[in-house]
């Protein structure tokens, strides 16, 4: 089983990386870009097959540890 976690900067929070990459993409010649956001991707390979309990456990890990809830949001998916 695999857990996939996407962590993104909160919308209200400044994302200097995203802004700079947007600028670079435009500079290289990509047009029509409204915004770029850059976050983290975490993949966790798990032994167990119990989706429910894994989800519950990892939700907590996401909030407490993997993301920084002050400035980031996260999305957890179990596959």
């Amino acid at each position, binding site marked *: 089983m695999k857990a996939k976690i996407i962590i993104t900067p909160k919308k209200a929070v400044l994302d*200097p*990386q995203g802004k*700079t*990459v947007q600028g*670079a993409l435009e*500079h*290289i010649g990509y047009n029509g870009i409204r915004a770029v956001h*850059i976050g983290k991707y975490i993949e966790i390979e798990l032994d167990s097959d119990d989706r429910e309990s894994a989800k519950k456990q990892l939700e907590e890990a996401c909030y407490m540890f993997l993301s920084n809830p002050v400035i980031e949001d996260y999305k957890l998916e179990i596959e």
Partner: protein
Amino acid sequence: MRFAVIQFPASNCDQDAIYAIRFLGHNADFVWHKENSLNGADVVIIPGGFSYGDYLRTGAIARFSPIMQTVCEFAKNSGIVIGICNGFQILCEAGLLPGALIRNRSLQFRCEHVFLKPATFNSPFTCKIPQEKLLKIPVAHGEGCYYASPETIQELKTNDQILFQYCDKDGNLTEQSSPNGSLLNIAGICNQTRNVCGMMPHPERACELILNSEDGNFIFQSIIHSLSKTADKTAIKS
């Protein structure tokens, strides 16, 4: 001898490179990244720093600057290019050097002097380093762990492209002596044609005793020496 030091937004060791070269009595000036001429320079230095904040990946954005086209041309025509720290990262991103630099294994930025063992003297960057000499030169980076595929590493070895390796004070290539966990303790390499060099340590920060080491000068003197040799040859020919 004229050195061009490329200035990207937030190149911040640019000034140090100029200082070190002028300290040796040669000319050095900035070239702005939006330009596309090197103004007749003999050597190009891509300096350290955090070009574009190192956002996305170190060196990833800078290599799209207009001046990098010119630098690539210059390199193709056997021009001497040395990338230091962020400059090394940019050269890898630009494909002028193989491999990539990833995060230090400690996951922390490291600023300290290290010892370097020249792995070859057959290059314009190492030819004037005295045999048996270990260089004491500082590093200051968060992403200096050299990585390349096994095939690339094999090629580097076969072609004698490894220039510097981290070592301890007695010259042993120990794991402990590397500040970042690079494969084979690699601190610097050159391309196959031996005119482009990338290195994580900062020779320009080791250019006078008051800064704790003068060992960086061996590298610049090697460059100057090999260029004046070719200059002599062309002078004889013409």
